[in-house]
């Protein structure tokens, strides 16, 4: 029986449970004379109560079971006499078992490894046995839940309250999914990074100035990430911000202080739409238009070391990409400054631009700073534009016309193409990912704190 069929069946049972719970409650309402106390919950809620008890325990069991049963099946197969002849090498063994599983479930028709054929039958038996066990237990749970909850229905049973609680728990579970997934990601990053740091000391990685990972070479001198950090900072925190902060701020000032309602009503959404343009589109623009143009400019100016993949090309375009983020954060913070501040300043005979410079911006500064930090965090983690336009060479240079590389670019490079999971070269990608994660996390925390404190101060 396939998983989908079981789930559908459970929902079918749930529907029956709902109908019978509701019918039961309606009946209870009828048998007692109308003069008695009004029932606590309407019949639907009794229906929902029974239905939830029918479906949820069984579903919960099934999800746990589906995680456990493959392992149990493998255990069963290994216990089979046919598995006795398997080679000892862990890696080969798991390859054979994996193949046998795919044969048994019909995902592939022909095994590459002759030994896997012998395991197909035991695998099939084990899988079907465990899936039958799972279905039976799930059904038992469904019926037990239904029966138990059904017996609890009474005229004054508070089904509505119970259902409300379940709804609340479901919502809570939904909101935890993202957080738990993030934890999972962090742990896997951490785990792989630790394996990397077994091979390359943390200090060599964080403070080394030479980056050129080669397959099969674990020399710590090749894993100095400083050039990547520098490239990331140069593009994301320096060049992009030089573009995005003034333009974003001026946009926000125009929108909040000068733009007539009519202009604002189309300009603001238009700018916000820009935030939704896929970064790969900006990447094209950076790589095909801005990069070559800057290169010709540098050549014309006689600047040495210019490349068409340059920090400047990537940074400028990234700055443009980030403008909507900065301007909408700045817009929010300026709008959050009470209009009494503005009126107070205007009433003293300050001009609008004096008011903006001397009252509004200083008052909105913490919020603007928070927005800038969020923007930096976004820029530092941005991948597509730099992959397409910043180049690959790990140069430690201050010349914005030359090619640099960033953390994200190197992660992409290390994780694509030929890769062996055990090599320091591949594991380095996880270490870089971890650094990136920690840095952006801190930036976000600090930024959100600042923004929050700022909001509070005007409430």
């Amino acid at each position, binding site marked *: 029986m396939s998983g989908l069929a079981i789930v559908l069946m459970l929902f079918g049972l749930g529907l029956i449970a709902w109908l019978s719970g509701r019918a039961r409650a309606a009946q209870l309402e009828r048998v007692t004379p109308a003069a008695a106390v009004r029932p606590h919950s309407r019949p639907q809620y009794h229906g929902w109560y029974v239905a939830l008890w029918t479906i949820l325990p069984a579903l919960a069991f099934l999800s746990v079971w589906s995680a456990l049963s493959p392992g149990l099946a493998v255990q069963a197969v290994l216990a089979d006499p046919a598995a006795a002849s398997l080679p000892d090498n862990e890696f080969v063994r798991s390859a054979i078992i994996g193949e046998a599983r795919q044969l048994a479930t019909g995902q592939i028709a022909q095994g590459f490894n002759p030994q896997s054929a012998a395991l197909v039958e035991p695998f099939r038996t084990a899988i079907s046995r465990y899936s039958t066990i799972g279905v039976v237990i799930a059904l038992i749970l469904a019926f037990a839940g239904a029966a138990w909850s059904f017996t609890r229905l009474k005229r004054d049973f508070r089904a509505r309250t119970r259902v409300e609680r379940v709804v609340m728990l479901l919502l809570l579970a939904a909101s935890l999914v993202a957080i738990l997934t993030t934890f999972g990601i962090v742990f896997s990053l951490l785990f792989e990074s630790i394996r990397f740091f077994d091979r390359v000391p943390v200090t060599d990685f964080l403070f080394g100035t030479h980056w050129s990972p080669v397959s099969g070479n674990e020399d710590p001198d090749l894993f100095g990430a400083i050039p990547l950090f520098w490239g990331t900072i140069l593009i994301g925190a320096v060049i992009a911000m030089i573009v995005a902060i003034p333009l974003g701020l001026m946009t926000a000032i125009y929108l909040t202080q000068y733009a007539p309602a009519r202009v604002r009503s189309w300009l603001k959404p238009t700018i916000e739409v820009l935030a939704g343009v896929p970064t790969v589109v900006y990447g094209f623009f950076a790589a095909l238009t801005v990069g070559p143009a800057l290169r010709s400019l540098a050549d014309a100016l006689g600047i040495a070391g210019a490349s068409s993949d340059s920090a400047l090309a990537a940074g400028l375009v990234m700055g443009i990409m980030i403008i909507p983020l900065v301007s909408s954060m700045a817009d929010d913070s300026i709008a959050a400054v009470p209009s009494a501040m503005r*009126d107070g300043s205007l*009433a003293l*005979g*300050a001009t609008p631009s004096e008011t903006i410079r001397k009252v509004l911006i200083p008052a909105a500064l913490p919020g603007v700073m928070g927005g800038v930090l969020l923007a930096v965090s976004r820029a530092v983690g941005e991948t597509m534009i730099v992959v397409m336009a910043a180049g690959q060479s790990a140069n430690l240079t201050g010349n914005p016309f030359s090619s640099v590389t960033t953390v994200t670019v190197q992660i992409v490079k290390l994780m694509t193409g030929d890769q062996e999971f055990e090599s320091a070269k591949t594991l380095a990608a996880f270490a870089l990912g971890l650094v990136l994660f920690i840095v952006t996390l801190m930036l976000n925390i600090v930024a959100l704190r600042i923004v929050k404190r700022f909001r509070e101060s005007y409430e």
Partner: protein
Amino acid sequence: MTTEPNTAPKMTARGVNVFYGDKQAIDDVSIDVYRDHVTAFIGPSGCGKSTFLRTLNRMNDTVAGARVTGDIRLDGEDIYAPEMDVVQLRARVGMVFQKPNPFPKSIFDNVAYGPKIHGLATSKSELEGIVESALTRAGLWGEVKDRLQDSGTALSGGQQQRLCIARAIAVDPETVLMDEPCSALDPIATAKIEELIHELRGRYAIVIVTHNMQQAARVSQRTAFFHLGKIVEYGATTDIFTNPREERTKDYITGRYG
């Protein structure tokens, strides 16, 4: 104290109308404001007191959709004339708002703000002098002289309001408009502000909007009663409160209105 002014009016308004979009908020209002007299605007909520007050320093310009017609003069100068510099006008006609609104800057910088933008001081010591004298006139100097660098927003509500008054008088205006300056304050802070208004009288023409009849009677020499966008009655405060000509005025000040 005379009940009839013997000087030329500081500000005159003739046939003033204010519209918010299509809605008329002020309807043909004419009034004279004198330098030596505190003028109080009273009237039920929504009758247009704040709206009219804001026409006197053109703060209505900052309200989208607001339109003012009629003739308003400051010392005989048409303040709605095209050649009028609004920024200069607001330096001459200061304003104190209903809710204290100090800038999130130090006490010193709050008061120094106006003088700085208008270039009233040529040196740091001159600026300090202006700040000190404004704070002194606002009755706040003694309380804050040791903490001028503290944030203005850290003061109590009453102190904040006096700071805002100090801020307004630091640019040496000719007229000070106050829109319910005490409505957010407790009785003690209110009494301080009223005392301050007494002291400032004669130096600046003062117009105060208030919902508090006793306050109007205590601080003002002239009172205008607004109703539905019009002035129902305007005259010496003593007359308005003891011997109103209009039935509506009488109902309002005796609390029988509405």
